[in-house]
């Protein structure tokens, strides 16, 4: 039986009907055409599916869509305003913090959530916050640099 749920996503209120066995990630990608979040492992180990729910980064592959009823969700698509990228995204570009790009939306969302809760993260804080995001191109140092740089400029929020 489908459930009717409503939630706020990237600032917009949505109402959808979903099967209970659909994960949040599947709903984002298949029903809402938000394909930034990716499925890597599907088991909470790679972080490519990371989105922010109620201000907290979560693995959207490990959450049922029905569980976001009444909640607020932010995905990578909600970070930019019009054609203006979020300063964090700009910093990723500036630091060449992406190669194939598959892990990037998850990386950015984990980093965004970190900067929201901690305006002055140390390198250790950044590494801890991103530990659940795997990059198989292994460009970790540039990603850490991009996050630290933007944190230093104080425009994380």
């Amino acid at each position: 039986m489908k459930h009717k749920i409503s939630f706020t996503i990237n600032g917009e209120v949505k109402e959808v009907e979903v099967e209970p066995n659909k994960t949040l990630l599947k709903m984002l990608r298949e029903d809402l055409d938000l394909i930034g979040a990716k499925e890597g492992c599907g088991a909470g180990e790679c972080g490519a599916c990371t989105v922010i729910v109620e201000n907290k980064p979560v693995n959207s592959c490990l959450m049922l869509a029905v569980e976001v009823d009444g909640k607020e969700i932010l995905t990578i698509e909600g970070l930019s305003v019009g054609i203006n990228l979020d300063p964090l995204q700009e910093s990723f570009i500036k630091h060449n913090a992406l190669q194939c790009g598959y892990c990037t939306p998850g990386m950015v969302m984990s980093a965004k959530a970190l900067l929201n809760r901690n305006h002055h993260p140390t390198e250790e804080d950044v590494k801890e916050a991103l530990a659940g995001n795997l990059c198989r191109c292994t460009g970790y140092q540039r990603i850490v640099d991009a996050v630290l740089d933007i944190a230093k400029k104080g425009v994380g929020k």
Partner: protein
Amino acid sequence: MKKFEYLKPTSLGEAISILVKYGEAAYILNGGTDLIVSMRDKIVQPEYVVDIKAVPGIDKITYSEQDGLNIGATVTLNEISDSRVVQSHYPILAEACKTVGSYQLRNRATLVGNICNASPSADTAPPLLVLDAKVNIVGPDGEKTVPLNQFFVGVKKNILKKGEIVASVSVPPIKDEWTGVYLKQGRRKEVDLATVGVAVVCVGDEVRIALGAVAPTPIRASKTETLLKGKRIDELLLEQAGESALAEVSPISDIRSSKEYREEIIKVLVKRAILQGKKGCSA
């Protein structure tokens, strides 16, 4: 993932009656980080998934000097490791919660879920065992409290019967000064299950030791504790403690480690945990 019906009770009573009604066809959904993976891999195929996150009264951490700590079923691992109360009174527990999975996983995963899943490698289990934690269970026959060391009965098996829910885990207050540590050996620092986990708490002349990932359940090394009680810790005794702990467990080979490697690491970690756990202790 196979189709199922999603139910979201708004009271413990309602949750229990749903679980009684559907029996083995129903699974509790809490943080979901174990259940959803198992459903995806078709290891479990529930017909009813019972989300307990709308049940009031099981989402809090409470503490008092008299009663100690109480952690509700739906409290996440991040809420525990971020809790000032846990950090100041039970730092070993705050640290252990941080060793599970990744930051985003810990925003969903719960301590009670970690315990109920009853994996031999559950990271919260060894610290809770050395803290003499108790499991508060509610079910069709009312409430009961069971010591954690009687809660696990085998690999991924606990004592819960049809219709029973763990409402919270409580940790009694420790009157005397104490120190403790949880050491986890994994293949890498982050996002890995424990190859071996060792928790040590020192209270007065007593040394409590618990181990994870080395037996069908997380266990207390009670013979080793007796060996150490009241004694001055020196190199020879540490050596004996490592051997003694090893004799109390039954490590196996699996994807994370060979049996032989585990046997070595058990000895090393037990010694190291006793030394680190002792620091600042009067005995």
